């Protein structure tokens, strides 16, 4: 194949004219096709973070317990007992629309590799999903494939999927969000990094063979490619969880020896980005000989091998005297193992194939001169506070509507397809608590994990959307009794070239940062997914609601102290936190009144911290029997959720004067928790002493939820209403 390398081809590879000019200046000549491919993927938004980098720098990333913050394959925090939690979240949005099963499956595979690359055994997966409107004809296909794909990969590899979240909104029609998170556990002093070291050391390729999978989209649009062959060429990668399982076991076995100097998974832009990153971080050169790369297909070009995104592959630098030890381990696991190059002192990446040098690029400029953009921003005025709308439905009517609505309906249909118990350490399965909890094997400790984001808040006011995502994650961890330690983020937005969207991005980051700082809750890893937009037939582009998804991780010193949402048979319900009855952007307003309006609920970081610290302290003291934070749907929905989990009802007291009933029961004011306790007086007094707003909500017991004026609903009926949505959507009702 001979493609003429010029500005046109560069453009079709996604490089701007300016960027191509830089390439020419760095190379001092016209680059080869392979070189152009390497530049284009390394300088892509995905690999270079060119639109987001300068803003991400402002995020809080440090705390005494942070071992590795952003910049490594995953974040690493100290969880005590000489152990570390290693975690990250990553998006696979676009592939999951094209081929939902494989897109979601390979998303899970990718994030797992980011975690075990660092020497951690993956112990839990979570997934944050956003789908288009349930009324959209295509939504069923996407939901079906995505859920099957996540389950298909995670179940097979034997990592329990323990949590996540799901939203539906028309802005995700044609552009679903699939954000997958993996949490692993490693020995704190056995963390593996990617920086290569030791000139002359072998560069080793392990895992699956390389095929022509997922070579960047630019290739497809290039007219010079033979029509027929390109139509056969898959853009979709197919995941092989069985091979990944072998890869996990083989890598962990190898990492228990002293053979590994550095290791990096092959994710986006495969061999290119892994080789470039390892060498640049280690400030060495790297020589690759592609003749040794295990290949699945015949006659692959250097360009194709360098850009292939075949799954389940890793690159590592080994101690030369240990390569045979390593080879034996990979042979035992029946995985490919090949020495494909060595480190040099040239400061360059040199790629040979069939005896020819196909690429020879100085690594310094490839990294340092990667474009960074300070893109123009436009900040939109956030909407004003909503003036309280009147109540068209009544309390019981609204609760019935809300509890059956897509964003509040039971997710059991989803989590029942995910193996949440494999590994034998799961304490709180999906639906049982505000955060999932797994025991740290061999200890009394637990890890609590959650993912959270409320895109409709971010759409209305990006700054508040950023704040709220963080505080909700922090609250969900807190509500189990865990101490929140750190978070990972997955920032999903539309096109950064649109100043309005760039404005959203900047404001969201400010919100994340302010909340993280106030709560001592640093961001240790993350991922940015931009250009989440769809173009309609009329040429109109719609961007998704800005979705800064937060994955929070916390620790419990003793899992025996953890609480879930299930209420005891008797006792009292208390409400912690202040209620104004803010209905702006609430689900009540959307689902009951059909309006998406107003300002989202205010976030008061000091109140969050005060109320949360109080809750955690009293959970750990054993005074709290069950706890659930108040978020989507408001107070009555939170109580209903607790009742449905436990199969026990309650008699609630009427709303206080000063707040109208519907605003009280359905407002989404933040910093609140519903607590079930058998020691209400003690807890009330303690709250008052601590200056924490507290209120008696009612008595636990019976088979109904009862409110003096307005409502009496069987918990059983609630459960039925709550569980219909997914089976109906999927035609399995």
């Amino acid at each position, binding site marked *: 194949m001979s493609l003429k390398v010029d500005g046109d081809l560069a453009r079709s590879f996604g490089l701007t004219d300016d960027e191509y000019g830089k390439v020419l200046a760095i190379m001092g000549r016209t680059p080869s096709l392979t070189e152009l491919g390497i530049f284009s993927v390394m300088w892509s938004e995905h690999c270079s973070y060119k639109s987001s980098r300068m803003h991400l720098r402002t995020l809080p990333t440090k705390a005494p317990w942070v071992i590795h913050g952003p910049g490594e394959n995953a974040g690493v925090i100290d969880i005590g007992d000489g152990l570390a939690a290693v975690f990250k979240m990553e998006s696979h949005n676009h592939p999951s629309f094209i081929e939902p099963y494989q897109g979601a499956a390979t998303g899970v595979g990718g994030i797992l590799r980011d975690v075990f690359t660092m020497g951690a055994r993956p112990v839990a997966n979570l997934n944050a999903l956003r789908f288009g409107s349930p009324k959209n004809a295509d939504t069923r296909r996407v939901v079906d494939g995505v859920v099957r794909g996540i389950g298909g990969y995670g179940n097979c590899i*034997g990592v329990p999927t323990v949590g996540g979240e799901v939203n539906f909104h028309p802005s995700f029609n044609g552009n679903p969000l699939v954000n997958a998170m993996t949490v692993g556990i490693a020995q704190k002093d056995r963390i593996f990094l990617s920086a290569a070291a030791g000139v002359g050391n072998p560069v080793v390729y392990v895992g699956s063979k390389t095929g022509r999978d997922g070579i960047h989209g630019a290739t497809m649009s290039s007219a010079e490619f033979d029509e027929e062959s390109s139509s056969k060429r898959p853009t979709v990668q197919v995941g092989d969880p069985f091979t990944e399982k072998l890869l996990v076991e083989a890598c962990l076995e190898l990492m228990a020896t002293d053979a590994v100097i550095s290791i990096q998974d092959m994710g986006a832009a495969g061999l290119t980005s892994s080789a470039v990153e390892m060498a640049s971080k280690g400030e060495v050169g790297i020589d690759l000989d592609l003749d040794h790369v295990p290949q699945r297909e015949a006659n692959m070009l250097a360009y194709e091998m360098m850009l292939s995104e075949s799954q389940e592959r890793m690159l590592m630098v080994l101690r030369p005297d240990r390569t045979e030890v390593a080879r034996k381990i990979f042979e035992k696991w029946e995985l490919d193992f090949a020495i494909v190059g060595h480190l040099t002192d040239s400061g360059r990446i040199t790629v040979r194939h069939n005896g020819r040098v196909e690429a020879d690029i100085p690594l310094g400029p490839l990294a340092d001169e990667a474009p960074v953009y300070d893109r123009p921003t436009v900040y939109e005025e956030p909407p004003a506070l909503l003036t309280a709308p009147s109540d068209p439905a009544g309390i019981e009517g609204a609760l019935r509507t809300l509890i059956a609505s897509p964003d509040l309906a039971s997710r059991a249909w989803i989590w029942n397809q995910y193996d949440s118990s*494999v590994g*034998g350490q799961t304490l709180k399965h999906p639906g049982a608590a505000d955060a999932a909890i797994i025991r740290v094997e061999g200890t009394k400790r637990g890890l609590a994990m959650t993912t959270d984001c409320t895109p409709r808040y971010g759409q209305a006011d990006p700054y508040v959307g950023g704040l709220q995502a963080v505080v909700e994650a922090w609250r969900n961890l807190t509500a189990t009794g865990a101490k929140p330690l750190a978070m990972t983020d997955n920032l999903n937005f539309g096109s950064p070239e649109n100043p309005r969207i760039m404005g959203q991005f900047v404001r969201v980051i400010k919100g994340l940062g302010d909340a993280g700082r106030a709560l001592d809750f640093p961001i240790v890893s993350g991922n940015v997914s931009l250009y989440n937009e769809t173009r309609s037939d009329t040429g109109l582009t719609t961007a998704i609601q800005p979705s800064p998804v937060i994955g929070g991780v916390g620790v419990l010193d003793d899992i025996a102290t953890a609480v879930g949402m299930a209420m005891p048979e008797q006792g009292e319900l208390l409400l912690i936190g202040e209620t104004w009855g803010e209905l702006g952007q609430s689900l009540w307003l959307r689902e009951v009144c059909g309006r998406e309006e107003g300002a989202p609920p205010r976030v008061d970081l000091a109140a969050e911290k005060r109320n949360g610290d109080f809750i955690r302290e009293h959970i750990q003291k054993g005074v709290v029997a069950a706890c659930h934070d108040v978020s989507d749907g408001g107070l009555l929905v939170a109580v209903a959720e607790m009742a449905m989990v436990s199969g026990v009802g309650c008699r609630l007291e009427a709303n206080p004067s000063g707040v109208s009933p519907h605003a009280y029961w359905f407002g989404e004011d933040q910093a609140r928790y519903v607590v079930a306790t058998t020691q209400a007086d003690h807890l009330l007094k303690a709250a008052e002493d601590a200056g924490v707003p507290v209120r008696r909500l009612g008595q636990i017991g019976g088979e109904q939820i009862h409110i003096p004026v307005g409502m009496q609903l069987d918990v059983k009926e609630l459960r039925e209403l709550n569980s219909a949505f997914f089976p109906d959507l999927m035609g399995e009702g």
Partner: protein
Amino acid sequence: MKVGIVVFPGTNRERDMVQALTLATGRAPKLVWHQEESVTGLDLVVLPGGFSFGDYLRSGAMAAHSPIMTAVRRFAEQGGYVLGVCNGFQILTEAQLLPGALLRNAGMRFLSQDCHLKVEGKENIFTHGWAKGDVFRAPLAHGDGNYTAAPEMLDRLEGEGRVAFRYCRDDGYIQHDDAQINLNGSARSIAGVLSENRRVCGMMPHPENLTDPALGGTDGMPLFKGIVESLST
């Protein structure tokens, strides 16, 4: 009591099984790699859950033909005790150490939830820890758990008391055609079966995942305690 847990490439519930057996026996079982050729010296061989060889082709098919299974077959023929859970059950049917086969779940979806089982088997070490008719809770997690066998074989299994466990409601009620009770659509709600000599048992649900009091219950413990008690007397 010496227990060996066979590990195939793709097995993923061996750690769960180690944990349960360690709690039950007080000592850690031995892990046996699928390429080993003998299981001598063991009192019990366990084939745990997972996706051996990816469960590609048919669940358990490739594992059933790996070298260790020749040894397991010999062990069983000589009267050794073998327990297969989930993928282990699939492997035992593929290896024809147990009758029948496990098809895709009737609803065509992977199922991961708690189920209830009624104890039916007689005179065997696997149900020894319960009384006949007892009902217990167990998590299940599988895509291919829909038990099938020829009608004559089903009659025979029932007649000989070789149905070890059946899916039921929490009150013990059994209804073959109710997808809320017989979750995966198994013939006659069969969740576990025994070999002719009652020394080989296969079951789909995971009692090993409910054995630790710190993690939500011990409903599955009688399986292991019953085995220990039977084999140490």
